[in-house]
């Protein structure tokens, strides 16, 4: 009887342990490796950094290994304007894109949530549909649209909005277009989920108490959809900060987002320690909004109970 209970206990523990095991193997261990590389020095060797951790060297080897670690790469990051500018650029693009995404995504999600019930699965489908085409192909399609003799200039000139073809590609505008286009589903879906489950009788109650429709939106709908706004904003903001493909393909060469800088350090300069330091700093930087979101959710949960 008791052995059976014990076995069940072990089973339960294993189930709880699995996600932690997953995190340790696929997140913590790689992170520690990256962290270790960020504390190393570049070297013309394979791998291209020292010191290399060698268990065979024993205790003395370990001591020597620790003394060779340094924060030089991090010092470089904070002193060289290129990196700071890269970080700033990434945060700026992510912040502005997130605001644009909210401005475009909210009306879409609102319209979806207010559409007849029967249409809603179809509308959700329409939002998700772009995922069925490869992300890269979609970005290449934007190159086609935005280039000098592309579709956009064609249409604008035919409509006599502009007389000479404008340069869309290789600019921040192109990055914003690409980012907003690519991340829209990630903004719309959490917003839709928040708006869709809102009790319609709350809107009727507000109307009943003397609230015109536009005011009901500000006093009831918007505050109640804030968890969806937070989820959507984070779901977009965090990956956009680290975005590499979109700025690389659509953006100009004079501005670099942090993802591009990292790529350059790693592949062009073969400076693994600096590349790793960039990655570690980025993670720490992004941890702040995530922690903020966690706090927000915690409070929302407590308030809603």
């Amino acid at each position, binding site marked *: 009887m008791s052995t059976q209970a014990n076995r069940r206990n072990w089973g339960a523990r294993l189930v709880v342990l699995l996600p932690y095991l997953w995190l340790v193997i696929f997140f913590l261990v790689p992170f520690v490796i990256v962290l270790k590389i960020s504390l190393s020095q570049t070297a013309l060797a394979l791998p291209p950094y020292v010191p290399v951790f060698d268990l065979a060297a024993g205790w003395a080897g370990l001591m020597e290994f620790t003394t060779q670690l340094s924060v030089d790469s991090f010092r470089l990051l904070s002193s060289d304007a290129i990196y700071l500018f890269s970080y700033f650029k990434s945060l700026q693009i992510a912040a502005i894109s997130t605001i644009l995404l909210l401005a475009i995504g909210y009306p879409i999600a609102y319209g979806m949530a207010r559409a007849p019930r029967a249409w809603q699965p179809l509308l959700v489908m329409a939002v998700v549909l772009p995922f069925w085409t490869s992300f890269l192909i979609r970005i290449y399609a934007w190159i086609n649209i935005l280039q000098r003799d592309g579709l956009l200039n064609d249409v604008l000139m035919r409509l006599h909005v502009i007389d000479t073809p404008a340069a869309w590609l290789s600019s921040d505008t192109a990055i914003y277009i690409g980012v907003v286009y690519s991340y829209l589903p990630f903004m719309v879906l959490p917003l839709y989920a928040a708006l869709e489950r809102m*009790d319609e*009788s*709350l809107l*009727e*109650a507000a*109307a*009943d*108490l003397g609230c015109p429709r536009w005011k009901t939106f500000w006093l009831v709908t918007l505050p*109640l959809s804030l968890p969806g706004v937070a989820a959507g904003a984070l779901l977009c903001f965090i990956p956009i900060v680290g975005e590499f493909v979109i700025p690389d393909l659509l953006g100009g060469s004079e501005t670099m987002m942090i993802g591009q800088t990292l790529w350059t350090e790693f592949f062009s300069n073969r400076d693994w320690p600096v590349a790793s330091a960039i990655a570690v700093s980025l993670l720490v930087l992004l941890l702040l909004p995530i922690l903020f979101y966690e706090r927000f959710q915690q409070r929302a949960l407590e308030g809603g109970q």
Partner: protein
Amino acid sequence: MADGGDAAQEKAASEKPPLVRFEAVTKRFGTVAAIEALSLDIAQGEFFALLGPSGCGKTTLLRMLAGFETPTEGRILLDGEDIGAVQPHERPVNMMFQSYALFPHLTVEGNISFGLRQENATRAEISERVAEMLALVRLQGFGERRIGQLSGGQRQRVALARSLIKRPRVLLLDEPLAALDKKLRAETQFELMELQRRLATTFVIVTHDQEEAMIVADRIAVMNHGRVMQVAPPPEIYERPNSRWVADFIGEATIVEGRISASGTMDSALGQLRVANTGGARSGDTVWLALRPEKIGVSSERLAGELNTVPGTVSEIGYRGDISIYKVRLADRSLMKVALANVGARGRALFKADDLVWVSWPPDAGVVLYS
């Protein structure tokens, strides 16, 4: 409508125009008619109940009064004015929703003051009225609580306070007590009545619970299939139903079919029955006699006197504590429901199943119905 009290009320109603008047109102959703050519008057200060089975249109009627639905045909008058075109947020009526529809992101105070804030009331006025409302529903000290921290009964009172703070001409209550447990519901019914009397506000309540409607309301409109079957004070609805449907829907009733004879009695499968009042039915008319279970007596011997007596066998007994329901199988195989108070302290049944008994009732116990 021959009753004296009712005539007085009719007279009082005719002296001043009703507060709410439905004039031949029809509401169709697509091709389905939820309300059909319904006319109804509700007087100022009345506690009025809309009672009926689910899907009878009572909630639609209430929502039309609140402005959430517009009539397909007909007019709704409030104080003699057509309110058909008035938006919900501009109507001087407030509603207490079935699910309460409290704003989860606001505190108790935020919820209660919501209506006043839409009228640009001053800060001092708002806090004064909120305090007054909190006292009214006995929630002093709860103003800062979040809705999530309240019990069901407390939420119900917040919803009530929120719908009363604007001092509406009519308060609409959509199944206001349905979410409460039985004991709390019974207490709250009396609180609602007291509140209504104190505020002298017109209350219109929608309920499917006939006991609730009987207890709280001054008048009840019994509805079925989008029509009003009968409008009357609760005792009249119960004692003088105007149709078999109402007699059967409200409380319990045994209905006996028969024909009025030349001598003014009623010929039925149970024999010749004496009735006190044929209500204008002429000889040869087919009528139905509705008998309430508590107005019928059961005895082991045949009773003498001016009574209708019919033999039968006890078929089933349902013990309910205060009373027991006896189902008595009569000579024509029909069942008659009889309620007997369990006055003996031991809880011993007066009769057993399969006992041969006589059921009897005085001529004035039943109601003669034509439809």
